[in-house]
């Protein structure tokens, strides 16, 4: 399959993520959009890795061909850990201000 399709897919996922972060006010949805961006990048990484493994130069030595795919698993693990922290913060936020609307969180002002 052409690499361009993968790039287009991950780019659209990433832009959806950005737009979501920018326009939504619900912290959970923003959080999900961030995850979406993260996974768009992951997808791109895997796609390039696959493309690279198929190239004639890489075929000569297959030792490192699947490194990026393994790397993505690590990213997913770290992302999972990060999600727990992020969700915990949102829970704490809800306990404090009884909402998950980020526009109420303007205490950084002044």
């Amino acid at each position: 399959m052409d690499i361009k399709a993968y790039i287009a897919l991950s780019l659209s996922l990433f832009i959806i993520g950005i737009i979501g972060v920018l326009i939504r006010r619900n912290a959970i949805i923003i959080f999900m959009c961030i995850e979406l961006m993260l996974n768009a990048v992951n997808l791109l990484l895997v796609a390039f890795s696959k493309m690279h493994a198929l190239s004639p130069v890489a075929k000569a030595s297959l030792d490192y061909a699947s490194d990026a795919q393994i790397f993505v698993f690590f990213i997913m693990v770290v992302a999972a850990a990060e999600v727990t922290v992020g969700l915990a913060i949102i829970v704490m936020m809800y306990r404090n201000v009884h909402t998950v609307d980020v526009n109420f969180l303007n205490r950084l002002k002044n």
Partner: protein
Amino acid sequence: MNNIFKLIWLIPVLPLIGFLINGLGRKYLSKKSSGILASAVILGSFILSLLTFIQVNQGVTSNVHLFNFIHLNSLKVAFDFKIDQLSVLFLMIITGVGFLIHVYSTAYMHEEEGKDFAKYFAYLNLFVFSMLLLVLGGNYLIMFIGWEGVGLCSYLLIGYWFRNTAYTNAAKKAFVMNRIGDLGFLLALFWLISKIGTVQYDEVFDVANLAKLSNIDITGITLLLFVGATGKSAQIPLFTWLPDAMAGPTPVSALIHAATMVTAGIYMIARSNALFSLAHETQTVITIVGLATALFAASIAIKQNDIKKILAYSTVSQLGFMFLALGTGNYVAAVFHVLTHAFFKALMFLGSGSVIHAMGGEQDIRKMGGLHKHMKITSITFFIGCLAIAGIPGFSGFFSKDEILASAFSHSVVLYSIALFTALLTAFYMFRLYIITFTGTFRGTNDQKHHLHESPKAMTIPLLILALLSIIGGYIGVPEALGGHHYLSAYLSPVVESVEHHLTNSTEYLLMGLSTILVLVAILYAWVKYKNYQIEPEAKGLGKVLQNKWYVDELYQKIIVNPLNAVANFFNNIIETKLIDGAVNGVGKGINYGSRQLRWLQSGQVGAYVLLMVIGILILFFIQLIL
């Protein structure tokens, strides 16, 4: 090296020690101890100078190297002391007259508080130190250090009674005018260094080095040196500070503004005679300036009523005479007149101090009169001083002044006649001063009359010694026409080339006879005019112009001070407030305003921050794309 020459550094260091002790311990020293200390260190210097003089008189001279002062690749300036006939002669004048004036001051200043008393002596010692440095220095730079030092001390002592604004203004005037001259001196030094790379006397006056200088160099350097001399020695156009300098205590006027500091310019030119003899244009300038100053100041002196002002203008006039001698190339006569003038002018200043002391601070001669009855020693010694300055045969001034007149005559008859006329004016105003002050009837208040008394011994003894010196001081320079052999000229011959007068004995007799007769006539005229002195009505015409000192101060005020003030005001009000303050405050205001405008960016809305971040990334992204 001679033993006494090893101790030469002690001559200036002793007064420096006196200055440090008196200056630092002024709160703890009693008046008596600080006065004795200050006088004792000067006496020590005087004794050392005397011992040095005995050596030098036998023809032993030396250049004592103390340490390296500036040691650069291209320029080496040593801290040297030059011991030769000229410097030792000045050492004797400075320490000798200086000692007498210190002793005199202990009595004259007795009304001062203890701490101010010590301060006064500290300044006086510092002055002597600087002056000795000026005279002893083996190169122009050391001379310049002393030169600046005496200027500072002069400033400090003129403004000694600093609570009086007029006095501090006089001090500032003296300092600023001196600085103008100093700039000329400094430029001359730079010029010398750039051309021959040294300021050491021996090297500068070396024939090989002098040959390196073009005519323009020599004329420029000597003219700039002369500018320095006009500042320090109060010549036209920088003379107006000296009469104002009379604001200081009278012994200060005697020491600094009559006997020593103001003759520094003459010393400097006499020291540089090798240079000046090559610069004929400069010599002409010096002659004209000297003669003009002599005449100008003498004409002012005849109409002044302040006893010290008269003496001050007389000093300016006599200094003009010395410059006339320098300009005509007769350096010996100039140094000779410095010596005799130091004696009789110090005598008269101290005498006037004695009068002021007796009058309780009054300086106006119109309110004096008949003082001879009350203070005989002061009166008689002052009379001797007047005879000496007028040039009555037998007194010191006669010999030195006639030598200057003779050397003027050998140059041109016009110079001679103007100088002679000035000498007549001198005799006239001096006897006017004497007659109005010491003869006739007393014109002051009754309180003053009861207070009149002869001054204490500490004041009269220096007067007597100086009076004696004013009489005999001239006999070291008796001209050959009078059967002398001019000891001074022979003594100075290793340093200063002596000039031939080309005058026959009979011409000299004629000149002496003429000046003596005319001086006597001038004195007689003064006697007839002022013996029944009553307070005069307001002067008119020329008299008024003279009384107001030819309006020179007003002229300077108009053409120099006022424009300078206007420029300064322009810079202060326009450039400073509008331009510089505007720029500095503008930067602050701009930042303040800008940050107030930027503050809305910090809304606290997380979404807004994220939006900005994304925009930023997009901008960076596009920049990346374009480049």
